[in-house]
């Protein structure tokens, strides 16, 4: 897809409520830049998960539009959207006896006919590439259920990569992982962005990882966006107080900014 002014996705006047009375998202404007890692943050219940669901077409707005390049995503076919945007959700489930290779192959679904399973040369190349990038090829014949949490998360990312999209959405990709796997996943995400030019949009909870790995920080509160910009410059004690209602000291170590989250 051709993107104007390096903007891949734009939300305009977005409004949404679950019950028709209280707007969870209200008149929200957001523009996502091409080739960047955008980190969406905010307190529980601030509307970031709802925004994520709206941008990934799991919910539809009551008012306003979300544009992908110059197309309204509501008007796009399900498969067409899946050829442009890949999504890694939280809490993924799969049958206990599905192999890594088969699962990653499901990522080819947007390119297949209704009754077709992945199998063409193009499919196999995309699957092999996705498994290589995420370093899961040595587990290709293992069951997904046999893998560790960190490996499993890489498999789900591989499945999304097999969709061969320009944009990758991730919903809290490091939740439930220990610190080693967290950093492994964050580095993988950075590689996907830097080496393959994939635009990344993710909901994330760890403030310091957002500063380290994010290019653009988007802070949400009460269904609106209250801050957007370079995380190094944007995140400070005042902003964190506004977002989370708690004062956290910010220190500098070796020229880098860290938030004391204790």
């Amino acid at each position: 897809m051709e993107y104007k002014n390096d903007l891949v996705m734009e939300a305009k006047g977005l409004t949404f409520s679950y019950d028709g009375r209280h707007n969870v998202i209200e008149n929200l404007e957001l523009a996502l830049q091409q080739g960047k890692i955008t980190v969406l943050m905010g307190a529980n219940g601030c509307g970031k998960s709802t925004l994520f669901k709206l941008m990934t077409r799991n919910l539809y707005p009551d008012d306003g539009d979300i544009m992908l390049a110059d197309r309204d995503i509501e008007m796009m076919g399900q498969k067409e959207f899946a050829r442009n945007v890949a999504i890694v959700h939280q809490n993924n489930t799969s049958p206990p006896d599905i192999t890594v290779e088969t699962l990653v192959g499901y990522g080819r679904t947007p390119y297949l006919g209704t009754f077709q399973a992945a199998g063409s040369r193009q499919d196999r190349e995309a699957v092999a590439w996705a498994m290589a990038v995420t370093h899961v090829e040595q587990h290709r014949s293992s069951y997904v259920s046999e893998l560790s949490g960190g490996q499993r998360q890489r498999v789900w990312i591989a499945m999304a990569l097999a969709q061969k999209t320009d944009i990758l959405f991730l919903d809290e990709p490091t939740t439930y992982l220990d610190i080693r796997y967290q950093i492994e996943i964050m580095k993988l995400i950075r590689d996907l962005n830097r080496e393959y030019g994939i635009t990344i949009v993710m909901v994330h909870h760890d403030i310091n990882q957002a500063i380290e790995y994010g290019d653009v920080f988007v802070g949400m509160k009460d269904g609106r966006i209250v801050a957007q910009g370079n995380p190094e410059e944007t995140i400070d004690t005042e902003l964190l107080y506004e977002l989370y209602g708690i004062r956290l000291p910010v220190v500098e170590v070796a020229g880098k900014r860290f938030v004391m989250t204790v």
Partner: protein
Amino acid sequence: MKQTERKHNALWFILVLALLFGMTYISINTGSIELSMKRLYQGLFVAYDADVATVWDLRFPRIIIAALGGAALSVSGVLFQACMKNPIADPGIIGVRGASFAAVLVAGLFPTLYFFTPMLAFAGGILACAMVYLLAFRNGLNPLRIILVGVAVNAVFSGLTQAFNSMTGGNLSGVASIANSNIAQKTWDDVYIITGYVLLGLVLAWISYHQCDLLSLSDQTARGLGVNVTLVRIWISLIAVVLASIATAEVGVVSFIGLIVPHVARLLVGSAHKVLIPFTMIGGAFLMLMADTLGRTIAAPYEIPASILLSIAGGPMLIILLRRSDKAYGV
């Protein structure tokens, strides 16, 4: 799929096919007339033999109907379980009772429409299924809500069927045979009626194996892959309703088989639907035929309906399998 498992799967297929053929032979020979393999062959293909002709008219239709019914109900179970992402989903939950009620009505009130029974049963099944889905629909179809609404709708149709059976004094043979799941007295006409529908349903089920696989992912993940989850769920349910209704119209309500056969099949050949659906088909045909054959042997000359035997033997069997298995399929 792992290489070793591919080999195992082939062996399981050969075994269960052998069991099906063996059971067919035993079933042919169960009753007052016994025929050797040679005599059977000669009577069927070489020269007329009065005994073989009797068996051909009386036992063959029953065998074929039991096998087709078992296959249809079992595959219907697999499809519903895929749709609901729930290993205890059963054709009984959606549609089947509606189908049996329609079949009972036809048999009782319009016996002349006998040949249209499968179609009308299908209409009844679709009606019940549509009721369940419409009542459960809220922002898409949530599997758990479908099951809960299904139980309620199911109870109503089940009650209506029993009520109608009682109102007719339980004496109308057509009504009673569906209400009580009796496969006795089937003729070649019955075979002609259901074969086409069942084969169509089985073929449709198998070509949809990839969609069944995709439904095993969470709904939002499947949607992210470009799958129209609600539409796929309706399509798979539709095939399942076709299979379950047609089978129910002929063999009555046999709910347990749609639960146990897919379960055992998953333990043996895994959960990939490309393999699971055909395996369940053969396994279901075998189990139903075995239950029917046993049913007419145990207390001969009286017959115990296959559905009752399946419930008695199937329950403990499922529990043993679940306890011995180290792989837990969502249970």
